[in-house]
């Protein structure tokens, strides 16, 4: 006789053994979400730390020659295209203020009189993208704001 008690016991066992691997998977997620980039400039969560690691200084000034081309409004936070033009730059650092680890891209060994770099970024929220360019020992800076649409920021 397949009693109600036995049925509930089997149901409990079935739930336990089916949910246990899912719980383990969840713990694995938690372990991997703490991944830290081995490079200090990419692991930094403060822009000052990024600049200190990447460019050796935090002393920056506005530079009108640096041009950042980004969309004013991006429909997706997963793909935000950008193009940066920095005449005479030897090194370029691109940071996204909204991200928990702000450094997006570091361009080094630039061997062109006018540096033009292109990329696609992921952003956590709406916010500023700033380009720092090292030229002749000075660090120039330019910033553009990007508004994200098409997603609910409170759920991101």
């Amino acid at each position, binding site marked *: 006789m397949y009693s109600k008690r036995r049925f509930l016991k089997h149901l409990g066992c079935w739930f336990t053994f089916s949910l246990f691997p899912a719980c383990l998977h969840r713990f694995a997620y938690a372990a991997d*979400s703490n991944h830290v980039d081995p490079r200090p400039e990419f692991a930094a969560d403060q822009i000052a730390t990024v600049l200190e690691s990447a460019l050796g200084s935090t002393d920056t000034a506005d530079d009108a020659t640096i041009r950042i081309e980004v969309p004013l409004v991006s429909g997706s936070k997963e793909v935000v295209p950008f193009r940066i033009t920095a005449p005479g730059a030897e090194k370029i650092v691109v940071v996204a203020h909204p991200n928990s680890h702000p450094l997006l891209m570091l*361009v080094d060994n630039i061997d062109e009189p006018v540096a033009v*770099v*292109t990329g696609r970024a992921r952003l956590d929220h709406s916010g500023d993208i700033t380009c720092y360019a090292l030229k002749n020992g000075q660090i120039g800076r330019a910033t553009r704001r990007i508004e994200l649409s098409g997603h609910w920021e409170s759920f991101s």
Partner: protein
Amino acid sequence: MTYPTSLKLAKYQSGVEALCEILHPMYAGDSKQSEVNYITRVVFRLNDRVKAEFLLGKYISRNPVVGTVFNNVESGDSVQVSWQDIAGNRGQATATVK
């Protein structure tokens, strides 16, 4: 594991823009996926001379497109791009200026 890499050249003002597209998942290890694997380095060369070295973080979108502009190029010049991800996978592509 191999990821397809393409290199396209297009005229940009007085020079040539090289756009490299890599079909790479760029797993950042956040709450959405457990795996961590993203491209860390992309190097552009013109006739075997390094022209720009991109160091990338995990906030670059998947299937990344990175590019740079070469100002002084001539027909027949060779553009090479090579990349490496955090798992040690590598890839490269070559194109010739027409």
